[in-house]
């Protein structure tokens, strides 16, 4: 199976976000960037499927800045065969145009399976995999927490409100990966050495016209300072009073 894994370089989860002077982007000085946590599950799943089948290729792709070489190398160190960086200077928050550009590129590749994370932890979109699958005409299962492949059929589980859905599909497919799916391996020392010889190709991303533009990026209003009602169980009546008469939630 020829597998394409889509990844994104995003700020670390504990990064402090500051707004840049233009009011439309973040100030990245001092911000540590990492491989999007959910994309680690996608990379791991691709490697597992290749191991299960004993054949196939794993190609990792991102649309991002030159700096994303670091995250791509990281995935090569884990065992991916090839990495492709489609370069742009823009922050890719526009899901529809990202999906269009990825779809156009994937159509030029041997590919029966696309694996994605469920959500990129910068724009927090949770939309690209389903949008991409539709453009490719591929089957799609999103937010998968369990996945098996038997006789060419994928069986996936996903959480919905108050229940779990069991969904099946065949290739070609796009599957987005959620926490719980697997335990991502880290790059091994041997893997890191091997990664240096693996191909990392670069080309300018062919992005269509933007479908949305940022008007403003602001910090959310700080929550008004709360107050400590008191200590221990003796404070319960005062809490109930506050919830009823101040917050009016009881």
């Amino acid at each position, binding site marked *: 199976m020829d597998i394409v894994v889509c990844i994104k370089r995003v*700020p670390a*989860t504990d*990064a402090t*976000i500051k*707004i840049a002077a233009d009011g439309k982007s*973040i100030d990245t000085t001092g911000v540590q960037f990492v491989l999007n946590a*959910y994309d680690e599950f996608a990379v791991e799943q691709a490697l597992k499927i290749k191991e299960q089948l004993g054949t196939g290729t794993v190609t990792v792709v991102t649309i991002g800045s030159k700096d994303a070489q670091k995250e791509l190398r990281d995935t090569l160190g884990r065992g991916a065969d090839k990495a492709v960086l489609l370069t742009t200077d823009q922050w890719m928050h*526009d*899901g*529809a145009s990202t*999906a269009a550009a990825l779809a156009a590129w994937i159509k030029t590749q041997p590919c029966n399976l696309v694996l994605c994370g469920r959500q990129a*932890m*910068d724009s*927090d*979109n*949770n*939309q*690209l995999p*389903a*949008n*991409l699958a*539709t*453009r490719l005409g591929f089957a*799609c*299962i999103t937010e998968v*927490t369990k996945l098996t492949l038997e006789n060419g059929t994928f069986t996936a589980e*996903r*959480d*919905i*409100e*108050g229940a*779990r*859905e*069991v*969904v*099946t*599909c065949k290739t070609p497919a796009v599957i987005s990966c959620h*926490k719980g799916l697997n335990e991502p391996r880290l790059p091994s020392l041997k893997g890191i050495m091997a990664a240096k010889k693996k191909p990392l190709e670069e080309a300018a991303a062919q992005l269509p016209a933007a*479908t*949305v*533009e*940022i008007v*403003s*990026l602001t910090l*959310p209003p700080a*929550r008004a300072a*709360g*107050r*400590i009602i*008191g*200590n*221990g*169980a003796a*404070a*319960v009546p005062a*809490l*109930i009073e506050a*919830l*009823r008469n101040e917050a009016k*939630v009881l």
Partner: protein
Amino acid sequence: MSNIVVIAEVRGGQLKRPSLEAATAALQLASATGGKVTAIACGANLDAACAELQKSGVHQITAIEGAAFANYSGDAYAKAIADQAKAAGATGVLMAHTAMGKDLLPRVAALLEGSITTYAVAVSFANGSFMATKPVFSGKATMTVRALKAPFCVTLRPNNFAAASGGGSAATTKVAAPGGDLLAVVKEIIAAGGGKTPLQEAKVVVAGGRGLKEAQHFKLIEDLAAAFGPGVAAVGASRAVVDAGWRSHSEQVGQTGKVVSPPLYFAIGISGAIQHLAGMRTARTIVAINKDADAPIFKVADFGIVGDAFEIVPALTQAIAAIVASK
């Protein structure tokens, strides 16, 4: 003039409440554009859902009905809805950001070649442009975008708009669900035990953390949730207790779990790490119970009690139960 479509989510014949919240946003947009709102629902038997949609004040209802649509199918629903949205002349398509909404609307947007903004907390139409506002960077910033391409497709955060209840007598047009092969097929829906309230729809979330010390002590958290009466409260958990195997990941609140925005959130024995805050900081009222007066959770909590959860929570459960019983 431009018409707005709201996609109504129906599961097992039942209209989901967040769809009525999305209808509110659709009606607001339509009054700004001078257009009408069409609600589109998919399912096997939609009569009850359509009757409820009628009370919401939408102008038209399209029911795509048939045995083939009994279970959700992303590819089949998306195609049928996109066709109807085109027929309705939609320049905006809205849906609640639920498991179905986040899977379905990006597909509809792709078929319609529109823009797509997910998890919006506000939408507007002014000077000929649609705009949407959404949290980004796990709620550490707020982004407002202008749509440059029609239609404007948006999923909306639940518990953020009032449910539409404008009344009216919208006519329902029934459309036969198209048959044909599905790319992905839902084989089974396994209900979580005991008709639990879904975390993201709950009016109250009672969340526990490592401060509870042991898995079995989550009984305290479950009892407090139960005290609010049936269907009101859901149990949440910090990642520390999910990683420890005390609770399932489906209950995890935070950056790598669920994002919830209930009217009332209890954080009990939870320190308030930034990744946890990312999942609950937009709750309307936050109550923290923690024995450490310096725990960061107190910086976001509206009301806090410092002390031992094992002593405070049972007293709180009793007090809540008494209030609920007196109603």
